[in-house]
């Protein structure tokens, strides 16, 4: 399908749930995950100011580098991993098909 990619979410039990993500609706990965019913508080509404949308990227199809604001917020996350990102700062594009994440939140 055009302008729809599949993002996989690794559940706590290890299974991966595929979700279809539109790439032409200007949605962030945080909004898509929240819309799919994942319990992300998104306290700051997607401004890289709360870290409640913290995810670990398990398969990276070539995401853009994180900006300073995102890195600064990630510095505050106690459960940081080597591949941590804020889902609200990831804007899905067609090349990101197969992106796999685990939702970690801010604690």
């Amino acid at each position, binding site marked *: 399908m055009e302008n729809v990619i599949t993002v996989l979410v690794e559940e706590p039990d290890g299974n991966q749930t595929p979700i279809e993500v539109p790439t032409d609706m200007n949605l962030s990965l945080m909004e898509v995950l929240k819309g799919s019913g994942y319990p992300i*508080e998104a*306290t*700051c509404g997607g*401004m890289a*100011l*709360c*870290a*409640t949308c913290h995810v670990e990227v398990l398969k990276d199809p070539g995401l853009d580098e994180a900006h*300073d604001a995102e*890195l*600064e917020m990630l*510095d*505050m*996350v*106690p*459960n*940081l991993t080597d591949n941590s990102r804020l889902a609200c700062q990831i804007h899905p594009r067609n090349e990101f098909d197969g992106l796999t994440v685990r939702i970690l939140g*801010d*604690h």
Partner: protein
Amino acid sequence: MIETDICIIGAGPVGLFAVFEAGLLKLRCHLVDVLPQVGGQLSEIYPKKPIYDIPGYPSVLAQELVDNLMEQIAPFNPTFTLGERADAIERQADGSFITTTSDGTKIQSKVICIAGGLGCFEPRKPVIENLEQFEGKGVSYMIKDPEVFRNKKVVLAGGGDSALDWTLYLADVASELSLVHRNSSFRGAPDSAEKVQALADQGKINLILNANLNKLNGNGVLQQVSILNKDKEEMLVDTDYLIPLFGLSPKLGPLENWGLEIENGALVVNTKDFQTNLEGIYAIGDINTYPGKLKLILSGFHEAALMSHGAYRYINPGKVLNLKYTTVNGVQGF
């Protein structure tokens, strides 16, 4: 004991504006907030961001809005208990309430207004297995009185502005100071980061970069912190205190146990006067929920006005209350 008409729990924008609306009705307010400063999310999360949807302000910085609210409510002489969490509320035989804080401060009031936002701001805790075992026994997340650390060994963890600022401050206070940070550089204020680096170069502090807290050791009280570097090599640092500084995030907190009706983490209220299921206890701002609720500052201000009128009727049953315009009467403080 502090005595007042309305005890407002939460000094965010909505709690602050409630002082104004209550003041117009000659009701006095006392505010409690766990944060050391007023302003709630605005001052804690986004003080320097512009807000565009406050009526009459095409754009206003969050902190500026808070400062303006403080100026606006000043005529009504609100009193504050800051840096303390409201832990318990109790209804007295005469119908009044006593709110008790984490430091044992007691506030007696005719009604309670919960303006708790997304909840109590609490420190983010690092993921270390036996961390909680040492809380209050060497591990603390906030620095209330830096003198506690005079001539003690202290380990700070974190890479944000507050970790840098406290490193600079405690460098002259602690007998031995280490700062543990996961990355190789700091993204906080560049001049603070430079000063911290300079202290490390002079050997005044122990800067441990690219490293993570791993484990705590001690016999009843904290004695040693185990730290792992990126290659998983362990380093042991003897210490009296560990202060992880990873910022604050809101948690619903104690009000979960106050017998209030809660739906999806928010207090259920009616939209007539924003009273909760318990008589005399109101909830306004982000903390409440009702059909059509929008978590906006604007909505919270509206709720504050209706709550104040409801509280007035509850405190003065039978008294007639007419709506008075501020243009007609001005603001008569007390």
